[in-house]
């Protein structure tokens, strides 16, 4: 029997593709392909999975 709460599950709209970024282990920060820090890209911050509230609860233990 499917638990009651799961009757209210809905398909998730997956976030749009964002600028690729990579971790710079010496700075301990992520950087964009042109070398600028990822935090300087507002669009990326808003879209990246770890920043918006819904994506947070999707991928992590806490909203």
């Amino acid at each position, binding site marked *: *029997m*499917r*638990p*009651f*709460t*799961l*009757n*209210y*599950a*809905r*398909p*998730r709209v*997956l976030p749009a593709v964002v600028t690729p*970024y990579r*971790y710079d*282990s*010496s*700075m*301990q*920060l*992520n950087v964009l392909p042109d070398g600028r*820090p*990822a*935090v300087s890209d*507002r669009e*990326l*911050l*808003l879209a*990246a*999975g*770890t*920043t*918006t*509230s*819904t994506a*947070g*609860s*999707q*991928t*992590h*233990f*806490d*909203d």
Partner: protein
Amino acid sequence: MTVLILTSEQDVTADMVVAELHLRSVPVMRLDPADVPGKAVLSADYAHGDFDGHLSVNGHVLSMGGLRSVWVRRPGEPAAHASDSSSWLTAETRQALYGMLYSAPTRWMNHPRNADQARYKPWQLRIAHLSGFAVPPTVITTAPRVAQQFAEEYRDVVVKSASGPPPGDPASALPTTLIGPGADFSTVAAGPALLQRYVPKSADIRLTCVGPRLFGARKRSAPGQVDGRYGDTGYAWGTTAVPDRIAKSVQEYLALSGLAYAAFDFAEDEDGLWWFLECNQAGQFGFVELETGQPIAEAVALWLAGRTGERRVPESRG
């Protein structure tokens, strides 16, 4: 003295805080517990009645004597990236890493013991009562008859999950949803259902607490809207003042729960009353900072660096 941030490498919200620490020349080590053992190396020794421990990753080193504070942000499971990962290896690595960190005198945002407790939504509701918040009537039950009676008594009732959506299924979401009339409650017997009276709301409130600093944010709701995170209403998050009564209850809640960081969700009703919905012990703040301009990452960095004011003051600008 070094700040230790436990999080994954791709966590760009942590980057916001690392950047603030760099600005202030505060030494920092960023470590994902998933990288132990492997990329990250640890040793702790307990000899001659004394203790010391060391962590190193990517050429950065940290000794437990020089540990200033720990921020538990979005850490991976210990040993998750190990070539022979297993639940046993995770348990062993958790012992080694957290056992070492617990041996060091340091400040935590948040201590895992308090974090584990604080994740329980039913417990949150009780602590919210004790702290003086208004809490919508709520039931969590595996008895269909109890669920049915609750829905009949309160009429407009929402269902939400206690732990979040099923973790194995990234394509599915579990938003808080209004239960329509005539719902069949028989399957409540198959899993606990968390039902709550719907708060007819004018706005969602997100209150981010960093030590003593409070950052209030408000987003208007569309009429009849339930989960503020779904459906684009065109409204954005803006800064809002924190009522004194709320600030007092927050102080109480943080004292009872032992949290240094917390992100509260409230529903603001038509009379302007804030109804407690939940308290996320590691709740996201990047979206609030970006939309409101509130300096939350800076506040986290200052707390971790130990340069925080002791006064608990609501931050209400504009």
